């Protein structure tokens, strides 16, 4: 996968993950162009299209468009399911995920994506293991954050 974008119907970019090195200006241009093309598609059209030398796979979930760019030889249908799996993970984590969750917890969305995809390739396809890994890191957070009193630190309470 070359990159993944999440954007709303109003053209607001909610998440962008790039798996290949691109200049910032070029990224902005590509995002603008692609958003225009995808938002112009009608509901019954197919989920794939050709753009530049890449294939675009996109799917709309509620108010968000999930859009992936893959290479010529990659498998389109399995990419659709990569998107679906990502949505499932977000859903499980946030509990009935909606766009607001992704806006206010954008860093968490990135962390979940990173557990699932790395370098553009899918890491682990077992939903259970990915969720477990995310839970574990959250637990680490808990440990970090819970304030300990001086006595606790010294082991006297």
């Amino acid at each position, binding site marked *: 996968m070359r990159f993944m974008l999440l954007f709303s119907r109003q053209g607001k*970019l909610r998440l*962008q993950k790039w*798996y*290949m*090195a691109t200049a*910032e200006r070029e990224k*902005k241009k590509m995002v603008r162009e692609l958003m225009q093309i995808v938002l112009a598609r009608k509901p*019954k*059209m*197919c*989920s*794939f*299209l*050709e753009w530049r*030398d890449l294939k675009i796979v996109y799917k709309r979930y509620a108010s968000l468009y999930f859009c992936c760019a893959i290479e010529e*030889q990659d*498998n*389109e*249908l*399995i990419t*659709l*399911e*990569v998107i*679906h*799996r990502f949505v499932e993970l977000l859903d499980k*984590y*946030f*509990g009935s995920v909606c766009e607001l969750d992704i*806006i*206010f*917890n*954008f*860093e*968490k969305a*990135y*962390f979940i994506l*990173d557990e699932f995809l*790395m*370098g*553009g*390739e*899918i*890491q*682990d*396809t*077992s*939903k*259970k*293991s990915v969720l477990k*890994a995310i*839970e*574990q*890191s*959250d*637990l*680490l*957070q*808990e440990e*970090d*954050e819970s304030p300990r009193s001086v006595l606790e630190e010294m082991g006297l309470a």
Partner: protein
Amino acid sequence: MPAVSKGDGMRGLAVFISDIRNCKSKEAEIKRINKELANIRSKFKGDKALDGYSKKKYVCKLLFIFLLGHDIDFGHMEAVNLLSSNKYTEKQIGYLFISVLVNSNSDLIRLINNAIKNDLGSRNPTFMNLALHCIANVGSREMAEAFASEIPRILVAGDTMDSVKQSAALCLLRLNRTSPDLVPMGEWTARVVHLLNDQHLGVVTAATSLITTLAQKSPDDFKTAISLAVTRLSRIVTSACIDLQDYTYYFVAAPWLSVKLLRLLQCYPPPEDAALRSRLTECLETILNKAQEPPKSKKVQHSNAKNAVLFEAISLIIHHDSEPTLLVRACNQLGQFLQHRETNLRYLALESMCTLASSEFSHEAVKTHMETVINALKTERDVSVRQRAVDLLYAMCDRSNSKQIVAEMLSYLETADYSIREEIVLKVAILAEKYAVDYTWYVDTILNLIRIAGDYVSEEVWYRVIQIVINRDDVQGYAAKTVFEALQAPACHENLVKVGGYILGEFGNLIAGDSRSSPLVQFNLLHSKFHLCSVPTRALLLSAYIKFINLFPEVKGTIQDVLRSDSQLRNADVELQQRAVEYLRLSCIASTDILATVLEEMPPFPERESSILAKLKKKKGSMNVPDIDDSKKNMNGNGNVEHNNNNEPNEVTTKVYVRITAKQNCFEPGFKHCQSRGLAHIFSKIVPGFTYVKLKC
């Protein structure tokens, strides 16, 4: 609410995001952002050392601002500092920041690499994963230099945890993509192949991805992976659902891993070992069989996953191109999908069939679906699906169906989307030329192209039709008659005027006998379009006029009057003026013999690679475009090319030599002076150093 609390949530960040969302205008948003940036800047510069939580919060805010689309030019130092924190969340935010805002400052890079090195060596799997992720996300050359040799070691070490193995494999994959020369092959490659046997399917998946990329670089090193891949695939495909548990996706067994294994196998030709080959064939047959079974679930995820594996299997069958039964079965399966309810499947079936069409085993099978594809062209609502249908028609075209396919493509062209017209024009032109038995059909087709989509008929196309007409005696009369009739239309495209002007100039004499197309009628017809045309076309028409003077002395006076008119002799455009002046002069002073020699019929063109094909290849990039068969019949009707193309012209004094313009594969049918001397001067001189062609101008 989530099962696990989301940690501290960074309240300040949430408030900030709310503020931004509540901004009523872009200016308000920028104002709020600048306020925050100033605040963060002062906090970073401040005397008080910030605690980890605050640093994390501010770095996160900066990240948010950046992702909104604003430029951030500070904060990197603080982010790098976070990397050395022992707290996981602080590290995490630090890594996220530097992965998103990549900085090429070499001091920073050194610090970052140091932090990564520490985390890699920490033996803490969570920290190691963070570090590996960062390397994979950034993938810069400096990181590759620092870590490319370390990561294979981590990957194959016995005590590495599964999750770290996965990360290491994919990290290595990314490094290999960006800096392949820095990833050395070594004895670790054999152990990576061995990972395909690992118990943990996540590790197998990651290893398969890695091997697929590496095998493209050095296929021999990974040959042993083939048999392991086939075995593993076979086990998955024949397994019952409960075997794979976590890796079953909507009742499909390990679809991602299956697809990856099939991709890996596409890096190699069919296995040489007969037992292995038959095992693979069995596997592929099972996948094809499963497609015929009733679905285990109504959900689209189930069918997508199942079909993803099916399509990848078909890709492998096409790649091997060695088992006729499999190829035909694949073709039939795709044929079924051509009529499926789901648009996605129809799209993919059309796409896959394109590749099938070029295999000799399945070409005939593909042709049986022609009617369905033509129907798709007419009825599909989605333009991208129609485009795939055009591609498939182009791929399946051969001598038996060329006339029908070209006719269908022409009728589609009438209503096609503007963005795809040029490509269709190029394809029709290529097919018409390649499969023309009767060249009158070819001429008709190209003229139709100009009529339907004149704006999208590029130069290469109409140059080509002229070249072919010049080279084939048998079609010249027909061409003259047809363009003459076509030009009668009240509104004809400028490209038609160009083609018509050139052909009538060369071959108008063939139809001049008929009173309806007498020389005067021809001239008036062309001249009626003159003022509607652009400068290059007018230049071409002027050349046609001088040719008429040579061919038809009876209209010499009429044409001279036109040339003599002020609008020509004093034309604002230099080229037109020059031509008018010189042609007029030529017509006055040259004797009939000399005029006839100067304006002799154009000699045939030499064979060259079709520029149309080159243009189509450039447009489509890497797509498979069939080549014009070079061994086909000679472009000339009579089989000899009477062209003198060397630098030594043999007849000197009475011929006019002109320089060929630099344009590849074609020339401007007109004069181009080597110097600004007049025509009469060139008459008797030869300027050495140019390639000369005897030209009629």
